[in-house]
């Protein structure tokens, strides 16, 4: 199963977070909001200028800027699960 950066994911694509490679304030903030390895996310959509991105996680919706999404690696779910 391929691993992608969150930034590269398409709308409605689902996957499981494999790594969050950032420390400091941003890293802590991202983790506080539930973005930790092992969690399933689905891309809900993007803002009109393609940035930030909105994603579904643990039943809620979060938004991230693309440069923040760059630190997050996601393993994409199999093609049968993709919409």
């Amino acid at each position, binding site marked *: 199963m391929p691993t992608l950066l969150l930034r590269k994911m398409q709308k409605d694509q689902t996957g499981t977070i494999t*790594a969050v490679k950032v420390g400091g304030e*941003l890293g*802590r903030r991202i983790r506080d909001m539930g973005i930790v390895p092992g*969690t399933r996310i689905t891309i809900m959509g993007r*803002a*009109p200028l393609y940035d930030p991105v909105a994603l579904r996680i*643990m*039943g809620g919706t979060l938004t991230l800027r693309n440069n923040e999404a760059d630190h997050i690696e996601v393993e994409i779910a199999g093609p049968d699960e993709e919409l």
Partner: protein
Amino acid sequence: MSTITIALAGNPNAGKTTLFNTLTGARQHVGNYPGVTVEKKEGAYTFASGEHASIIDLPGTYSLTAYSVEEVVARDYLVQEKPDVVINITDASNLERNLYLSTQFLELGVPMVIALNMIDVAQDRGISLDAQKLAALLKVPVIPIIARSGKGTAELMEAALDLAKENKLWDPLYISYGEDVDLALQTMAQRITAASFMTESYAPRWLALKYLEGDSQIREKGHAHNPAADTELQEIVDRVAAHLHKTMETYPEAIIADHRYGYIKSVLRQEVITHKFDIDRLYTSDRIDKVLTNRFLGPLIMLGVLLGLYKFTFTFSELPVAWLETFFGWASGNLDALLPEGHLKSMLISGVIDGMGGVLGFVPLIMFMFFGIAILEDSGYLARVAFMMDRVFRIFGLHGSSVMAYIVSGGIAGGCAVPGVMAARTLRSPRERLATLLTVSFMNCGAKLPVLALLTATFFSNNQAQLMFLLTLLAWGVALIAAKFLRLTVLRGDSTPFVMELPPYRFPTFLGLFIHTWERTWQYIKKAGTTILAISILIWAMMTFPGLPATEEENFARQRQEVAALSAQTPEETLQLKEKLAAIDSDQAGSALRHSLAGRIGTSMESVSWLPGFDWRTNIALVGGFAAKEVIVATLGTAYSLGETDPEETASLSETLAKDPHWNPLMAMSLIVFVMFYAPCFVTVVCISRESGSWKWGLFSICFNTAFAFSLATLVYQGGRALGFAG
């Protein structure tokens, strides 16, 4: 038993404020935490048994590690004030994420009751929760509630009361963070205990955990308390961090967060939570978002909504503003009739009543704007606005939410910077917020419009409409570029992480809307009122004292007598005599103004103001404009000895300016840019100081804006002259 203290804590959007309003109703008091601009809300609650509780609404946070002021405030309150009980309010439809904060309360050990809020929404989403099982696993009471309707809140408060009566010692939960971190925690806790390192405030293991999480506030405190122990602990942290980075390419705080979520998952997995549907299922809220944040429709709808907010604020407040004006007009009319001529009367009318009128005149505006913003905020739409606008505003070092403040301040010409500055409260990122606060006053507010209208009508009558539109664009351009400049200089620093929640759309509650609106309005009246009144009187004094010397007074008196001595035969002659008297009055007012402190300042400023082309009359008007921009027109009228000029009726002033050889289109343009960008009116300055928590920033806005406006106006005037535009 004496009054117990209950702290309400939870994630933003979990319904904390709704619960607070339901519990305390109107019995609440809003203050500030010392030294920060975070609001501190306290309320009273009476139990069925007649006992009383004081309820503190802590700021909404996702975590207890120092990240923003809100988190520091919430944590400091818990650690230092030690409330009897914490009610941790969680969103039942989003429990896993919400329990992250709960876990941190457990680790802190504070006595806690968990409220599972919006249990109805969770059920609609096919989520069923076993509250008793969750309570047994976490070893704290768990009560399902619906904060909006008040269902379950009585049971919740009883559970809190029972827990408070137990008077338990704080009992921290120990979570295992894996071998490396656990070992480090143990070593550090031993050192902390041995050195009695801040142990009077914090539990040793908790303190060690904060060091490992890289908590900046705790580190600062630790360094101040005992530098040697601090260094020793930091060395252990660095060692673990290096090891983790080498072996697993990760960070201590990442390991800690992972294990906390692991703990939560292990609890929830024990049949606490069951989902009837796929958790990624689209809810109504997501369907609404498909339209409202759509690539093409989204921005259009947003424009409509913001325009609607603007229309709502400025149209609906028109009538109450007019009532207030009538009232203050009536009051000054009465005083005028009652009191004898003199300084007291002048001070009461021009200083006190006009000052009060200035303060209270904004009240309807603020009320309507906050009502509108509260609807957008409570419904969840504001987060979508930030989401859509962020890409544009980030270029200038701002945040998506800044757009609201700009629009209200006059992004659509005719707004007002006072509610605009207050609208910046919705921004959570400190640097972005400050940059917004300091630049919104560049927008063309309603009070600048009469000045711009007068000058454009007099000197650019052929293209007035186009020019006014261009000036609106200029204001946006300058405000955004100035924001960028501030973010590159005095407010330098990385952008605050944007990671933000898009809460599900909800209908705002009326109680919430009214409390929200009233609170903000009252704060404005109370705090701004006193300061503004004082400054208003000061400005009055500057424009009145010192009065004309006795010889000149006599001179005017003699002129009046001469006119009065002429007897009028026909009605036309009577009219002529009256006009002559009025001309003398205006002349005297003009001379008096020039002689006053403000006039002297204006005159002495000519030594620099020749650069942008302003004479002393313009200078005085600009000094007066600091009180309120619409005063510029009135003062200019007095300075040109036309008597008090009504900003709405400027025909005679316009004629005078057009004829005056000193004035030309170039100078008018120079004055236009100066008025647009120089120091904000002092009501705005007071609000900037209040919202930023420091007079320093209020003062900064005066100096920065004036310096900027002066440079730009000079550039226009001198540049224009060099190019031969001085007609």
